[in-house]
């Protein structure tokens, strides 16, 4: 384990950015987790990969950053806690700037590789099926599919925001993937394991480790093939499905109840056939908030 960046902090020990490197030479892959301190599935997934790589002999280089925002993680917070800034909005960073700018700069400098992967959990309010999601085409799409995660979501747009890690990597002409799975603040062991398997498959595809079995991608979709259900009103959402469930038109996805009294306000039902990729986990919802997202696989 190498400390690639360090900064003293008042009242407590220094912050250190740790990198674990396995193997050497080409091809090279950098995998980053925990840039948001409360996204524990990403951290666990990369640590699972660490234990796997420890007993293998990679033919190439794998740089792993299992937990970037340790200070945020200590407090269960997404952002860097001292000034409440999002490290994933601080790229390309600045070696002379604030702490988050310095961390972003150091991470970008020390994650130089042929292929880069930024691993996240969903927000604390939602649970996400393990997926690759970003505007993608060409070689990046091939790599995304090689992970064999349940969903590949080609979101609209030509580019990612360059103040984020994936956008900054792409701006530097590196192939970069954005991977999400599970829910923030909690550990979903099954989803973290699926993410770790996807990362392992990517390394297998690149010839760095022996290939493992193919994954099972249930849906490979564009934005028009994603059915988003938002709440028409504020209330208390009780889901009737779990991520990964297969649904058909009319399938009951959940109910929005009155928070006081519990009367049903509305029912939410699927319109098309598909796999449930996102489910609201925190039940109190504001009007227009996302409840369920379905990756459409049929009419």
């Amino acid at each position, binding site marked *: 384990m190498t400390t690639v960046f360090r900064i003293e902090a008042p009242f407590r020990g220094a*912050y250190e950015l740790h990198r674990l490197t396995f193997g050497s030479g080409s091809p090279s892959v950098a995998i980053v987790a925990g840039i948001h301190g409360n996204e524990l599935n990403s951290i666990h997934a990369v640590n699972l990969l660490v234990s796997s790589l420890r007993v293998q002999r990679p033919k190439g280089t794998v740089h792993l950053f299992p937990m970037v925002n340790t200070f945020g993680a200590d407090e269960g917070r997404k952002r860097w806690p001292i*000034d409440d800034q999002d490290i994933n*909005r601080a790229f390309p960073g600045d070696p002379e700037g604030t702490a988050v700018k310095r961390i972003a700069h150091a991470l970008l400098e020390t994650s130089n590789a042929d292929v880069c992967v930024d691993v996240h959990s969903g927000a604390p309010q939602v649970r996400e099926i393990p997926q690759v999601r970003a505007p993608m085409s060409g070689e990046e799409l091939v790599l995304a599919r090689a992970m064999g995660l349940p969903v590949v979501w080609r979101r609209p747009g030509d580019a990612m925001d360059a103040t984020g890690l994936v956008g900054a990597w792409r701006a530097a002409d590196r192939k970069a993937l954005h991977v999400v799975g599970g829910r923030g603040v909690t550990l979903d062991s099954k989803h973290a394991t699926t993410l770790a398997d996807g990362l392992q498959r990517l390394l297998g595809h690149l010839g760095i480790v022996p290939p493992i079995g193919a994954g099972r991608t249930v849906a490979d979709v564009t934005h028009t093939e994603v059915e988003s259900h938002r709440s028409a009103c504020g*209330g208390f959402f009780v889901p009737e499905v779990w991520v990964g469930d297969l649904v058909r038109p009319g399938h009951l996805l959940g109910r929005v109840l009155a928070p*006081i009294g519990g009367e049903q306000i509305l029912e939410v039902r699927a319109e098309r056939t598909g796999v449930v990729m996102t489910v609201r986990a925190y039940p109190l919802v504001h009007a227009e908030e996302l409840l369920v997202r379905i990756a459409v696989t049929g009419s």
Partner: protein
Amino acid sequence: MLARMSKLSTLIELEVPTGDVVPVLRRRFTGGSPGRRVAIVAGIRGDTPEGIRVAYSIAELLETMEKDLHGTVDVYPCVNPLAAHRGSRYWPFFEIDLNRLFPGRADGHSPDRTAFALCEDVRGADQVLELRGAHAAFREAPQALVRVKNDRSAELAQRANVHVVWKRSPGPAAPSTFAHQFPGTIVIEGGAGNRLSQGVGRQLTRGVVSILSTLGVIGSTEAPSTEPITVTDEQVRRVRAERGGLFLPGCDLWDEVDEGQRIGSLIDPATGVHVQEIASPVVGRVLALREHPVVLAGDMVARVVAT
């Protein structure tokens, strides 16, 4: 209750889980004769009560000016009411910075929709003024920010009754800010984050009134009491801590400082060790000063504008 001149409209209604509906409001003042339309926007972040106070003061003044108003003034008194309710910078629950969501989305969640609704409503205004307060960690001298190369806005901002007109180059995050959606926007701010500062609200209100007068929207008014200096990014020097510690200021806001003059000290609070003397890099004035004393290496402790 006295009849009000302004027409109150709801830009968007935010329905919270427990059933309350929180409106984002606009107060429209329409004069007796045609003229320009000016949009005055406050409270995009919830920890900026100074900007919200100035918007309120302007609106109350306009209520008394029906006959003297030419054109339209739209006052958006608080765009982010849920954050203002708890005094936080970010939109609560989502913990999202509304000023990184513009131009917003019509089909997104409530912060996205609010950003979108505001942009749609402001579109077409002849002049946009955004009223802010300082970041919660700082005190800021009254200042107006305009986009570099926008000479018309820089000239108009001379009337803002501020110490500094800062012609800024857009940074990486600029495209997602409100001000960036309307290139001629003048951002007016000052005081301390999340609180009101004595005299600042009055000073900024007088500046906004002076701008409205210059635009011909209201009649002639008292001239601004402060003549600003106009600077570009190169003249605004950020002074940063070299190490972590507790910053103890050694000067006050808008103090004149010489190059090398002490601005403050950095101490290690645990051991009592004096870590760093922090000095001004230029001859100038202190534009911003850190209020929240805990810093890490690289954190800004002051901003000095070279004079």
